[in-house]
């Protein structure tokens, strides 16, 4: 099987028009060039407002670049597609659908809900929510909801999975559990993953490479290779050094 999920950012620029008549346009991204290999896990990290979400939304096809382009497996990204799944910080489950129906929405939209019933169940089991099929989102905790959002995206077998601070709203304990679950899922699916995060530790624990970004106009400042063996230990010397390396890039070198 040919590995899929290769991403190319080619001279990417995004300028938002001014919000008011007197305001000036906001340049959120300034000539971003990068490559992501199939199956890689990339963490995007940088100060607030620097354009991380914008980059992710461009990749998802929810925004259009002002200049440059994004290619996924050689195809130009022009509009959203089920091949590029997106998980927001807020789980954004549809409150009027049960857990089962939320997870099954992708298949349903493709007209394959009935055929994929077993698959839907498999993905609910995969994220550990067996028994909650008929519940509505309001009956679930934040962490459980986020796992449903993950299953809802995974069931479409996307080539690329995008996360915008997916665990930002979770407590530290749940977050650590989610990290391991995510890595387990990744072992089985080898989807390319790009995750925006504020948490350096999260980035070092999960990612193969960490993209650091500068404040506006955002450029890709430095790409850090996290070549630590897995499973990674958060208290190992190498791990802590990696964290400090990234913190240094973000804070001190101007």
């Amino acid at each position: 099987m040919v590995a899929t999920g290769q991403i190319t950012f080619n001279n990417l620029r995004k300028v938002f028009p001014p919000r008011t008549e007197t305001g000036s346009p906001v340049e959120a991204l300034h000539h971003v060039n990068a490559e992501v290999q199939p199956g890689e896990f990339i963490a995007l990290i940088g100060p607030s407002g620097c354009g991380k979400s914008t980059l992710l939304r461009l990749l998802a096809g929810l925004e259009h670049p002002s200049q440059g382009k994004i290619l996924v497996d050689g195809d130009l990204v022009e509009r959203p597609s089920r091949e590029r799944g997106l998980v927001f910080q807020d789980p954004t489950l549809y409150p009027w659908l049960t857990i089962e129906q939320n997870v099954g929405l992708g298949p349903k939209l493709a007209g394959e809900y009935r055929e994929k019933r077993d698959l839907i169940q498999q993905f609910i089991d995969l994220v550990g929510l067996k028994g909650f099929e008929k519940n509505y989102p309001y009956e679930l905790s934040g962490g459980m909801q986020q796992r449903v959002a993950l299953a809802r995206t995974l069931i479409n077998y996307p080539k690329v999975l995008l996360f915008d601070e997916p665990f930002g709203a979770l407590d530290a304990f749940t977050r650590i559990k989610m990290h391991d679950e995510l890595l387990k899922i990744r072992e089985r699916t080898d989807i390319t993953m790009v995750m925006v995060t504020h948490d350096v530790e999260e980035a070092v624990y999960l990612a193969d490479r960490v993209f650091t970004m500068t404040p506006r106009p955002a450029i890709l400042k430095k790409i850090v290779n996290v070549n630590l063996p897995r499973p990674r230990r958060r208290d190992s010397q190498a791990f802590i050094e990696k964290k400090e390396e990234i913190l240094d890039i973000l804070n001190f070198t101007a």
Partner: protein
Amino acid sequence: MEKDSVYIKKITRIKDRQIGRAYFASIAIAISLVAQLAIPKSDILITKSLPWYTWLLIIALIITTILATYYIFFGGLEKFVFKSYFIGAAFLALGLYNLVTLKFALIKPIFFPAPETIINVLIVDAGFLLKCLLHSALLLAYGLGIGIITGLATGILIGWYSSWNYWLEPLVKSIGPIPSTAFIPIALSAFATSFQAAVFLIALASWFPITVLTQSGIVNVKKTFFEVADTLGATDFQKIFHVAVPGALPNIFVGIFNGTCGAFLTLMSAEMIGVRYGIGWYINWQREIMSYANVYAGLVVIAVSFSLMIAILFKIRDYVLRWQKGIIKW
């Protein structure tokens, strides 16, 4: 020892029960009944005496007493106990009205018939009242059905497509606020039958609020819901029916409630002005021939059937919007 604690528990449980509140309705009804039986009818009134009001009180007394007693011994029936004060007060008010009319004839008997006379109409005229009611219900069903369908369609079009919004919204905004009763004269001459005219007017009355609330409901659905649908592969059309409409449902139901009330109002007006049948027409006709007991009987029928309809609508809404539990307090 064991037995003792069970016994004590049972005693305190019974003590916890609100005996006074439970029996309040029965006591109030009993008082009304005593007044009805003990006080002689005013000798100004020449109509013959009818047993219906006495019967009503007796039946109500039996039912409320059984319910209250059941509650005292076995619990449950919280809803009845909660309503007991209200039921009692309603019967006291009716009893007072009975005193003012039947017993002492303090107000004009021709305009204010005694309870027993009104009940008499409900019984004697039941068949005809039912026919009128069915006729009105049919009008309402057609009108409201058309109003809901066209309202949803218009609301979706102007809430979702900017081109439809451009052309249709001014029309909606200008026609909508005109009370549909103002169209009665035009409708009566424009349509072949008064039935069609009434259906049109009722549809018009419900169409506007449903349109406006469907539109605002759709416009207010969270943007990220649509973005998620995009990344799950939804087409534009699918986004309407999988995201926009379900997301707008709470608003749509408010629109349907408002629409139903508007439709009802229009129905009554239409019947009083031009349509030659139905419960509104019945009331108007009886008023013209000065039989006010029949007018009141008609009003009772309207009140009961309308509140029944609203209650059913509430049940439907609660079922359809069951996913809102915990999100919104009704």
